[in-house]
């Protein structure tokens, strides 16, 4: 079904039980998985045409009366084309709008650079009062929509990953906005990932474990407010931290983690892995992921090289 289909199912389900839920889109109802919502809740569905600023402004007017609008468009258009509307309505006026950015990262493949969202988290993160949630799989998309429907916080919901996005085994951990899910603990390295990269991070951890490294994985599905408690707990527990995201290395998850860690004495070094501040050549999802070094084998090599440089390649040399 994919993250967008999961969003559509979740929205329809919450709308059945909560008549305040509104669905809006900027001419991307089907692409956003909202066709079921449109059919089942037509009175609470609005298509504003290809007009993302208007999408946010109308959603804000609806929120002013206590409706809970979920407004969908491609992530880059929602976060950047209408950026100042988001700042004004969701940030400054704190209107309870859930802006849903679909196709984040490279999910749009051959649509190309205009449809890649590589800077959206950085842009949205700078806006006060805005929550940013980036689910790791379809199940988490569903849970996120359910929880956000009951919250009063203006939110940017970032949907990364392609329809074949794998489910992530998150064990006994629970999804709660603002709380990281610690999927594994490790003393040599902790990989903090978000969205589509969480599943990949687990694969990387498996590969490194084979080489004898103790590697933790954290699903940081809420990028803002970032879970500072979870980050602080890594100090003295994990010798190094790597962040992985389908987003620029500037200002996204990596930036958020580094900003927290930099202020803590004795905190582990942080390697930010993502898109290295360039526009990748256009291609299939897998092609662009590989080009950016975000596939598991390349990530293993990157992390090994970095740890080696830190003098921590072998378990025996890691300070415990």
């Amino acid at each position, binding site marked *: 079904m994919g993250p967008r289909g999961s969003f559509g199912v979740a929205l329809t389900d919450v709308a059945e039980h909560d008549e305040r839920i509104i669905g809006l889109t900027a001419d991307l109802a089907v692409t956003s998985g909202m066709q079921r919502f449109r059919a089942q809740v037509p009175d609470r569905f*609005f298509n504003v*045409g290809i007009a993302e*600023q208007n999408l946010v*402004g*109308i959603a*804000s007017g609806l929120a002013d*009366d206590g409706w809970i609008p979920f407004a969908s468009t491609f992530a880059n258009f929602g976060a950047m084309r209408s950026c100042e509307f988001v700042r004004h309505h969701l940030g400054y*006026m704190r209107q309870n709008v859930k802006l849903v950015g679909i196709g984040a990262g490279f999910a749009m493949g051959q649509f190309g650079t205009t449809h890649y969202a590589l800077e959206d988290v950085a842009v949205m993160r700078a806006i006060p009062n805005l929550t940013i949630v980036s689910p790791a799989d379809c199940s988490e998309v569903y849970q996120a929509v359910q929880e956000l429907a009951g919250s009063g916080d203006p939110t940017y919901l970032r949907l990364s990953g392609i329809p074949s996005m794998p489910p992530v085994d998150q064990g006994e951990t629970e999804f709660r906005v603002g709380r990281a899910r610690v999927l594994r603990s490790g003393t040599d390295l902790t990989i903090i990932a978000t969205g589509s990269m969480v599943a990949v991070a687990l694969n990387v951890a498996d590969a490194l474990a084979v080489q004898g490294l103790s590697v933790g994985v954290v699903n940081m599905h809420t990028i803002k407010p970032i879970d500072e408690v979870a980050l602080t707990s890594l100090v003295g527990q994990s010798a190094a931290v790597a962040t992985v995201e389908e987003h620029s290395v500037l200002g996204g998850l990596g930036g958020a983690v580094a900003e927290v860690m930099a202020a803590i004495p004795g905190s582990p070094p942080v390697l930010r892995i993502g898109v290295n501040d360039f526009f990748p050549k256009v291609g299939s999802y897998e092609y662009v992921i590989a080009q950016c070094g975000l596939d598991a084998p390349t990530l293993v090599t990157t992390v090994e090289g970095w740890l080696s440089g830190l003098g921590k390649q072998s378990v025996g040399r890691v300070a415990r």
Partner: protein
Amino acid sequence: MNNPAPTDGRLAQIAARSRRQIVQIGHGAGAFGAHFGPSLSLVDILTVLYGTRVRHDSSMCSDPERDRVILSKGHGSLALYAVLHEFGFISDECLASAETDGTVLPGQPCRNQELGIEFSSGSLGMGLSFGVGLALSARMMGSDRSIFVIMGDGETNEGSVWEAAMSAAHFRLARLIAIVDVNGLQSDGTTAEIMSCRLREMWEANGWETIEVDGHSIPGLRAALSPATGSRPRCILASTVKGKGVSFMEGAAEWHHGRMTESQFETAVHDVGRGEQTA
């Protein structure tokens, strides 16, 4: 709406007092200056709106059935504050704090529903889509309230205005009323020089019932604001004089935002005082 509905003469007095407040508060803002011109052009529009049409008073600030006035041209803030003061939303003390450090009445409005300020503004082109959302909401709630969105003519340079305009007609929002303060000037000069456009044709082409009116005529504004009868949203193009009521500011682009000398302040006080005597 005040009860009983004020006469034209009484409305003229309210407008005249509001102009005096704008001059005094704007001058009190000090060296940074204030948006005199775009506030003075707007006074009569706001006075007739609150005096004759808007279902809202200081006891209705959280009532969902109240009409909503959205000042999208935030640089008309002093006019909004002065008129809300006249209609009992804003106290004398509060008004006197406008444009001072940490005030709830800054140079551009900050949403404060208890004071009747429905919308934060300053960044242009933001208000009409918000009004569309409020109008859609009213329809879903079965409310007959009206939504008034006040813009500047320069503001309509913003593309987002037209995204919203198109959608308002598409959604047949008959209780959405856009009022454009057509003072013919924007920050850098006349609207004709900076970005000429045919406003009437543009609003009509977007599906709006479009009315042109003298924005300083109290009877004219009363008529233009009469309740809608059709299914289309209404645009009132209110022709105004920027800086209206202060001789040296009238029609002068440089008084979009500025600071008066003491001698100019004396002249301005004299001008608005004469307005009060003749109202």
